């Protein structure tokens, strides 16, 4: 288990979308978007898959497990890094 120290500095245990953040699919661009108060992020498949699981009920382990069910080559550290980047954008907040 690496949860201890990594989780303390890493992303929150049960991430959810930040205040005023909305996840949407844009048919015209054929892309998933994250709409924030002052910006729009165009999501790649990985980010979209992770964000769709950020509902405040799943912890990092559940998110990683759910991704592993659907995709090959899911790496827990990659999920941690992605969530940290999304947190910097204020896209996700603590659960």
């Amino acid at each position, binding site marked *: 288990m690496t949860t201890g120290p990594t989780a303390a500095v890493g992303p929150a245990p049960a991430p959810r979308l*930040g*205040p*005023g953040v*909305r996840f*949407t699919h*844009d048919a*015209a*661009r054929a892309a998933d*978007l994250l*709409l*924030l*108060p*002052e910006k*729009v992020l165009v999501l790649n498949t990985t980010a979209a898959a992770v964000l769709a699981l950020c509902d405040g009920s799943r912890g990092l382990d559940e998110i990683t497990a759910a991704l592993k069910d659907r995709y090959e080559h899911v790496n827990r550290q990659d999920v941690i890094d992605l969530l940290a980047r999304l947190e910097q954008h*204020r896209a996700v907040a*603590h659960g």
Partner: protein
Amino acid sequence: MAEADRPWEVAAPFGLLAELTHRCPLHCPYCANPIQLTPRADELTTAQWKDVISQAHAIGVVQLHLSGGEPLARADLPELAFHARSSGAYVNLVTSGVGLTRERALLLADRGVDHVQLSLQDADAGPADYVAGARAHQCKLAAAKAITGAGLPLTVNIVLHRGNIGRTARIIDLAVALGADRVELANAQFYGWGLLNRSTLLPTRDQLDASLVAVEQARTRHAAAGRGPHIVHVVSDYYAGRPKPCMDGWARRQLTVTPSGDVLPCPGASVIRSLPVENALRRPLAEIWYDSEAFNAFRGTGWMSDPCRSCPSRHEDFGGCRCQAFHLTGDAARTDPVCRLSPDRALIDSALAQAGGLPQADHVMRTPPVADARTASEGR
């Protein structure tokens, strides 16, 4: 390199800034609205605004900023918000909060407003109302309550200038106490009325340095207290010495529609008189975005001259702000004078050398368009 210079690589816009009206109960001397304000009689009707919003959606806009002037001055605001939200767009209301009662906030939330940006002038009613030219501060505190009470996420915006920058810490504390998820401190930018009042608004270097420390301390203070808000601090480009990536590039991600339907690459662009002005009542938005002379004028990097033309930063800052270049040099295609590499940098340095010289009382308050003022007094 040639790739980025190709002017025909135009992507769909993400955002529309809809300046619904120029009417406003306040008179902020820093207001970035143009000096030539649109009178009420020239404003687009509800149906015309709805059509503009639908056209914007059709060309790719997914984020709508309802602003002005004071957007609450439009009785059809809830209807327009609903229309925008029905298309799936993110609806951001940018408001002074004057007139935002609990009922109205609830109605706007119900009609699909996603987020509210509420502006404050200062930490205390005295100086805040002085700058607003009206008794507004208490209304704003009530508006903040109405917004959070309606379950809407809140950003508090404050324009920092010489008169209030010394109270940066207390302004942030007030915004946090009001329940803001985000606090946006923007050092006054010099457009419209703000440019007119530049000499009374510009803070001194010492004031700016002190406010930078105050912001850092506030970040630590509020993060330590638990769930701290996101504090965004936009330092004046005059002091930064580097241009801002204005609008993320000319006509690259956003467009602005003025109260009368003029379609601009940015809210300040009406000052560039060398460019023809397009209007949504005369030409489809798609054509304006992709084909108009004004929108294509400064796309990409092909229009640049030296020093931008060969500068490695040109893909990040796009040569700075075209409106600022026009305002200060008379040529919109020059390097933004705030850039340390610009041959016109002396224009900025001389303004900075005078910072702190004039008393605040010398500022010119933003006043309504003449036609509106006349109608208002005739109506009495």
